[in-house]
């Protein structure tokens, strides 16, 4: 049942729990308990909203920063990652295979704010060898959701 609940709420975390229970053919109470369990176990780590900030006229600048680091003895990459992800402006930090080590995504109000973070906070860390900042020009799809307008029903009248 966990998998089925997760599949449904991954795309729509605001679904009415009573309706979810009906759709899964189980009672509401067991949906609620399962959700609570998964929250406690941190299977469900949070509920977020996908926002097209452009539409509200609020400008945001996002960047994906490729970071090369020296892993620390005994801790590997985890300690370095922690120092980075503790900054609230950092959206995500991934350990990456390939040409660099960490992929950091960042959101700031202005270009300047983002560059400042990179030059003053990120690059100055002892373990950081180099950074490469890629600014995001346009978001097409985020968290499995296409940002553009919702689709219209284009099905035509057909018989039989």
């Amino acid at each position, binding site marked *: 049942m966990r998998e089925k609940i997760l599949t449904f709420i991954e795309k729509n975390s605001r679904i009415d729990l009573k309706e979810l229970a009906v*759709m899964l053919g189980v009672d509401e109470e067991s949906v609620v308990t399962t959700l609570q369990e998964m929250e406690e176990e941190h299977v469900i780590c949070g509920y977020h909203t996908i926002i097209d900030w452009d539409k509200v006229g609020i400008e945001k600048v996002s960047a994906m920063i490729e970071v090369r680091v020296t892993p620390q003895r005994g801790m590997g990459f985890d300690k370095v990652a922690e120092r980075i992800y503790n900054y609230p402006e950092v959206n995500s930090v991934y350990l990456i295979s390939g040409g660099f080590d960490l992929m950091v995504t960042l959101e700031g109000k202005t270009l300047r704010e983002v560059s400042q973070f990179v030059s003053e906070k990120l690059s100055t860390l002892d373990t950081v060898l180099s950074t490469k900042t890629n600014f995001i020009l346009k978001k097409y799809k985020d968290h499995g959701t296409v940002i553009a307008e919702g689709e219209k029903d284009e099905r035509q009248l057909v018989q039989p």
Partner: protein
Amino acid sequence: MRDPLSKRIVSIEPSGIRKFFDVVNEMKDAISLGVGEPDFDTPWFIRDEGIYSLERGRTFYTSNAGLKELKEEITVYLNRRFQLSYSPAKEVIVTVGGSEAIDIAMRAMLDPGDEVLIPEPCYVSYLPCAILANGTPVSIELKAENEFRLTAQEVLDAVTDKTKLLVLPFPNNPTGAVMERKDLEAIAKVVAEKDLYVISDEIYAELTYTEEGHVSFATLPGMRERTITINGFSKSYAMTGWRLGYACGPEEIIREMTKIHQYCIMCAPTTSQYAAVEALRRGDEEVEKMREEYNGRRRYLLHRFQEMGLPCFEPYGAFYVFPDIRKLKMTSEEFATKLLEQEKVAVVPGTAFGHSGEGFIRISYAYSLSNLKIALDRMEHFIKHESDR
């Protein structure tokens, strides 16, 4: 001047689904629950394969019965999913949708005067196709108390010495009824006893919500040589516009069907055939996802009907529910008309699918949950209002 038209063609009535939807198109804020095709887009990897085949310049005809690779994949798929076994070279034909398969199967098998048993309510094409194939359609009126399943007794009651064909349209449009193994076994006995042939239209096979899953009629002992199994890509892979279906059956019947197909159609669309190969190879997971989604909506609708006190048997297939509106003391057509006028919700009266659909309406759940919710709220309001009168 002479009458330019064939009397036989003129005698066939146009489909009854239409008139409501002409109105819907005109009406602002109207919600339709009438469409009989998936609301999903064809999964991207399938569309991508279609595009790729065009880029590669695969714009020629395929052989008449279909691409060799596709026929092979069809037999592998039917075996994997429904334990059917057919030879790709001689027992499969790829058609322009399941509809063409119905047509050419009847034309290949019927002589003038041969009777075709058609359980109703059902998809509206069997009857005209039987007439066009010189056959005589004989309706079997399915009953609500049997949850619109076909019983052996009903077949026996309708059989005459002229009966040649039985159409098995399950999972059913418009009722959503399915036939489980025990139901089919009873039918198989009569089929053997009365020496009948069967067209088993299994286009909704993938959309079956029972534990057992869909049971294919041709897997029953002795039925393979008497059955044309029809299936296709429209419903299961959300590929309606690609126009692709297929029929499998005994070599001699498929050979004659291919003859008709070859003269009238040549071959099914090439791009669609290439895309379909990919659908069969990698599509199981996407099909499962869509089935789960439909199943959730199905349960939601049944729950809402229960809440609003509208009786409805639990349908285990396709994407239709067929609630019983008799307690409102109006005909299906009146119900549908009033619901559209008062609440701007379009449904199809059960009678569009045969007389035995009287007292019922067809609701399709090939719509997003949010759409269904609004429509059901309006319907609830309507029913309350009409019952209070």
